[in-house]
Each structure stands twice: as structure tokens, then as C-alpha cells.
């Protein structure tokens, strides 16, 4: 069936709720209202108020409560109304959820869904990409699908995973992207995927930036540009990254997140250490500079990586 990215996520939740009675949704306004983005629309009607639960505005308690439910056998899936609000539940995530298994041998299978990213004039508090914070907190898996297919498959994988998983769903892809999505249950593996072949240069991206990278690659007719979609940031598919660098020798890494200490910094450092000999040129990064995400479209466009910026970076590197 062809679904939007958003509907694919809803479908994953529906499938999980149907197939696993331990699954439970928690969040603000996710019940009758169906959530700020309508991802959970209809689910409370279908599964009842005991499985799709409206919580008070309490990010710490939502995440901590989910951990509690998880360690006695539930599979809670929490929605932050916007990814930005995860800063309000940060402590429970990094100090309780992330460290629990290592400390106590106790698994905390929770999923925290983060509607993230910019591109639609959301401004500084509704456009953030917080993934790097959690990549820097041991014990949390971090997933970031770019397609409807992977959105459903990775969310089902996240719910089945015995670990706490941060699930980044890009708001700007919600209704903009659609694609074939299998019915029923399936899982997408937590590894990278080549979404465009090529061997002169590889663009490494994830989430919405995969689409910008694909647009950029399509414009470059003079060379063959590969695009690698990371899909999972923790675990990070180091093998796939290094293989791509081995094949292409030139690499551009794209983050929608702020530049410093972003996922792309980690990918670049990995390549600089373990792919150094394969490189034929600098490891180029394209990212949002270290500023909050502006509201006005003219400003937002100026900071978020665009297909043009990626294309230009590729061209410059190809000419190296």
C-alpha cells in the first residue's frame, strides 16, 4: 500500500498495538485528539483509553513512567509533542533509561518518538534535531528513518527492541514523502542503506537530509554520486560508512542538526581515523551552523542544508 511517512508511522503503531498486548502509547493529547500531528489518530478509539493514554504535561514522568512500565513487562511508546520537549525529559532518558541495563542487567524496552526537524517555519522551539545528545549518552539506540517504508519498519523494530530507543520522525517528511509500505508486521534492520548508487563521491545523510542529498546527487550529471542513508545512528553502521568511503574516496556528510558535535562529526571522525587511506580529499561536512533554527523562511533556508548547498559542496570536492 502507498502511505505517507506519517501514515506509515501510524500504521506501525496500529500493528504493534494489535500484535502485542504489552504495547502502550503515552503522550500529551495523543488520545481522542490523535496527537499534535495526528499520528495517533483513531488509535484510542480502536484500542481504548488504557492503551493509548493522554498524560499531563510531564516529560520526565512520561519517560520515567515508561521505564517503570517497561521493566515490569510492558512496551511503552512515548510521544514527545515536539522533539524539542525531550530536553524536559532529558535526565530520565540519559540517567535512568540509558544506564539501566548496564548497571542492573535490567532491560528497559521503551520507545520515545520525537517529531523533529525544521523546514516549515517552526522557529527555534519546534525545529530542533536533538539526536546527537542521545548519541552521546550510552545505552540509547537512535533511529532516524527517511522513507515511509523505513519509518514503519524501524518503528516496529524499535518497539520490538529490548532497549530504550529514540525514534526521530522528521516532521517535514510527515506529509511530503510517501511510498510503498508492506502491510502488517515487518522490521527494518538497524543498518545503513545505499539509496543511490555511484562511485565518485558518497553523500552520507539521514532523515530529511537524505532527500536533499538525493536531489543534489540528481543534479550532478558529470559524476556518479552515491547516497548512503544511515537510518540508524546508534548503532552506527561503521562498516557501511567505511565501505562507501572505500568505494568512492570522496565523502560529504550532511546534518540538519547544528554543526558542532553533530552525528556528522562522529561520522567524519570515524572516516578520518579508519578510512583515512581510502580518502582522496577532505572529509566535507554540510550542517546547520551553530544557531537556533529561525522562523522566517528566508532565514531558515539560509541555515538548513539545502540540495544546493550539498550539490555545491559535492562539486567542489569532485574538483579536488
Amino acid at each position, binding site marked *: 500500500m502507498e502511505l505517507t511517512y506519517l501514515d506509515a508511522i501510524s500504521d506501525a503503531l496500529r500493528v504493534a498495538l494489535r500484535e502485542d498486548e504489552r504495547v502502550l502509547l503515552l503522550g500529551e493529547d495523543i488520545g481522542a485528539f490523535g496527537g499534535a500531528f495526528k499520528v495517533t489518530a483513531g488509535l484510542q478509539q480502536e484500542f481504548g483509553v488504557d492503551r493509548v493514554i493522554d498524560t*499531563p*504535561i510531564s516529560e520526565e514522568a512520561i519517560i520515567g513512567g515508561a521505564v517503570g512500565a517497561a521493566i515490569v513487562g510492558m512496551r511503552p511508546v512515548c510521544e514527545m509533542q515536539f522533539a524539542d520537549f525531550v530536553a524536559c525529559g532529558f535526565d530520565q532518558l540519559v540517567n535512568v533509561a540509558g544506564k539501566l541495563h548496564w548497571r542492573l542487567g535490567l532491560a528497559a524496552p521503551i520507545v520515545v518518538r520525537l517529531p523533529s526537524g525544521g523546514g516549515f*517555519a517552526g522557529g*527555534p*522551539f519546534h525545529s530542533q534535531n536533538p539526536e546527537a545528545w542521545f548519541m552521546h549518552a550510552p545505552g540509547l539506540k537512535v533511529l532516524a528513518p527517511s522513507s515511509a517504508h523505513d519509518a514503519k519498519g524501524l518503528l516496529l523494530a524499535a518497539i520490538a527492541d529490548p532497549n530504550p530507543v529514540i525514534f526521530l520522525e522528521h516532521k517535514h517528511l510527515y506529509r511530503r514523502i510517501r511510498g510503498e509500505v508492506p502491510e502488517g508486521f515487518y522490521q527494518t534492520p538497524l543498518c545503513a542503506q545505499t539509496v543511490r548508487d555511484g562511485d565518485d563521491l558518497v553523500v552520507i545523510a539521514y532523515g530529511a537530509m537524505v532527500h536533499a542529498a538525493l536531489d543534489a546527487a540528481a543534479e550532478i550529471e558529470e559524476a556518479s554520486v552515491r547516497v548512503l542513508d544511515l537510518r540508524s545512528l546508534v548503532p552506527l553502521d561503521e562498516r557501511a560508512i567505511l565501505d562507501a568511503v572505500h568505494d568512492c574516496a570522496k565523502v560529504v556528510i550532511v546534518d540538519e542538526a547544528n554543526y558542532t558535535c553533530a552525528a556528522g562529526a562522529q561520522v567524519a571522525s570515524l572516516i578520518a581515523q579508519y578510512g583515512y587511506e581510502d580518502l582522496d580529499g577532505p572529509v566535507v561536512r554540510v550542517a546547520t551552523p551553530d544557531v*537556533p533554527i529561525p522562523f*522566517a523562511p*528566508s532565514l531558515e533556508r539560509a541555515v538548513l542544508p539545502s540540495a544546493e548547498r550539498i550539490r555545491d559542496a559535492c562539486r567542489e570536492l569532485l574538483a579536488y
Partner: protein
Amino acid sequence: MALTRAIEERGLSLYKQGKIPGSFYDGRGQEATAVGATFALGPADPVCPLIRDLGAHVVRGTTATSILAHYLGRADGVSRGRDGNIHFGEAQRGVVGMVSMLPDMMAVAVGMAWAFRLRGEQRCALSFFGDGATSVGDWHEAMNLAGLQRVPAIFVLEHNGYAYSTPSARQFVVDPLERAALYGIAGVAVDGNDAEEVFDATRAARERALAGDGPTLIAATTMRMHGHGAHDDASYVPREQLEHWAARDPLERQRDRLRSLGVDVEAIDESVREEIDVATQEALAMPAPEPASALEGVFCEGEAEPLGLGAAPWSGFAGA
């Protein structure tokens, strides 16, 4: 107050015309609370308005033009295109623009008030917040600290019975007003749709604060007559409830009151209409911000300039 509503009405219509990017939030039906409370402050008393409090900005003297230009994301809007909708504040007028994370501004207000107490200044700080925001841990920490330190702060709870789609009954068991005493904070209930009642309560709270008698929580009962944002039709609110509150429209009540005092209300309306028309033209004529400007000002390079003293044309009754 009329101006407040007129600005929001114009904003909403510009939004519906697709001229305003992002999303749009208004405070329809709650104007009396923001206006009444802010009116009671002195020019040196900073205010932290929230999402329903456009009126606070207006009372402090932020012009219709700069507000509309802000909504439109223009270079000369209050936030110079950096932020949108109700996220702004003119620091030079003693207004601290809100962050989205609820109710973070309360702690900021406590800190300001604390500084006033420590320096022995006759000033207080006021923060607004909604009923839903009282579930957040920050509310508790700020209330606790304020009560402990007996800071000259005024907390205005805008109790509209809903947090987005979630009714109070799913936010808390006991009304937040009753909780005030448990923090050693005076609690006062007012009709949030009666500007003068709100004004009187705020003036009294200000006097208490300046006398060293500590903070006050003013619980203003009111109703959000629109959805949470322009995208929300609020179909979860029973129609009778809206009708009940429509009959208590704060603007109409104030108009009646003014009429009975012999004020020419129609003339005010007319002047507001003119002001808004002019402001709309001015705002629409303003340019979008320069893309490169997005990168400026992440850090303060010169001297730290404290909050201004609020050169508001109307406020300061209490100081008079």
C-alpha cells in the same frame, strides 16, 4: 484590549490568507487576563507573557506594526524574523519573550524578583502560565523557590480548563490554586474575563510583593475561545461550554463598562481599525530579513544590557 483582539484577528486572517508562515496561536477570549494584569505593573516590573498573552505586549507598548511584522517574519518585526507567532518580547520594554517549554519562564521570573529583593528595589516580576503547565516539574521548583525566598513575584494562572485538547481533569486532581498555600504563596481567584478584577488582584499582589510579603498566585478563570492554534478546531470542547463563555466575552464586558462611564466605544473601535489597517500595510511592506543575519548574535559581543525599564505608554498604574 480591543487592540489586542484586533491584532490577533488580523493575524489570523493574514494566516488564513497564507501570508504568515508556520503556525498561529491566539488568546481569543482571554484578553482580559493578560491586559488587566500587565496594566497593574509599574514600568520597571518585568513581565513574562505566555502563549495567550498578546495583550501583555500591547500594554507594554509593543506596536501593532511590529507585532504583525513579527507574525509575518519580517526584518523589522519584534524578533527580526527569528521567531514566530507569540514567541517574542521586547527586552527594552521589560518583556521577556517566552520559550515554548512550559513553564520555564516562571523560574526566570523568580530569578528576576529575587534579584530585586536582594538589591532592595521596589520592583516585582510577573509570569503568566496555563493550567496545563502546572503539571510540569519546573512549575513546582519555581513555586517552591519563590515561596522559600519570599520573592516579589506574581504568578498569573490562566485557567482555561484545557491544555491543548486535554481537559483539566486529566491534568491534575486538585486545582492548582489550592496548591499555592502549600508553597507558602498567597492564592487569589479572579474572574479572568473581567479585566478590572484581574487588575485589582494584580495591583494588590504587587503591593504585597513590594511590601516584602512574598509572591502571589492569581488564578484567573477564563476560556480559550479558539483552538490551541489555528490548525485546531477545538471540536473537543462542548458547544455549550463555548456558548456559556461567549456570553462572558471580556471585551464586550469592558465595552459595556466603558459605555456606562460615557466613553465613546465606537470611536475607540474605529481608531483601532484604522491603526490595524495602517499597521497591516506597514508590516506587509517590510522586507524579509537578510539571510545572512540569521547567523548573527548567537553570543553577546559587547556589554550585557539588562532588561529595559518598560517604556510602556499605558502601564504603571500601580507605580503612579
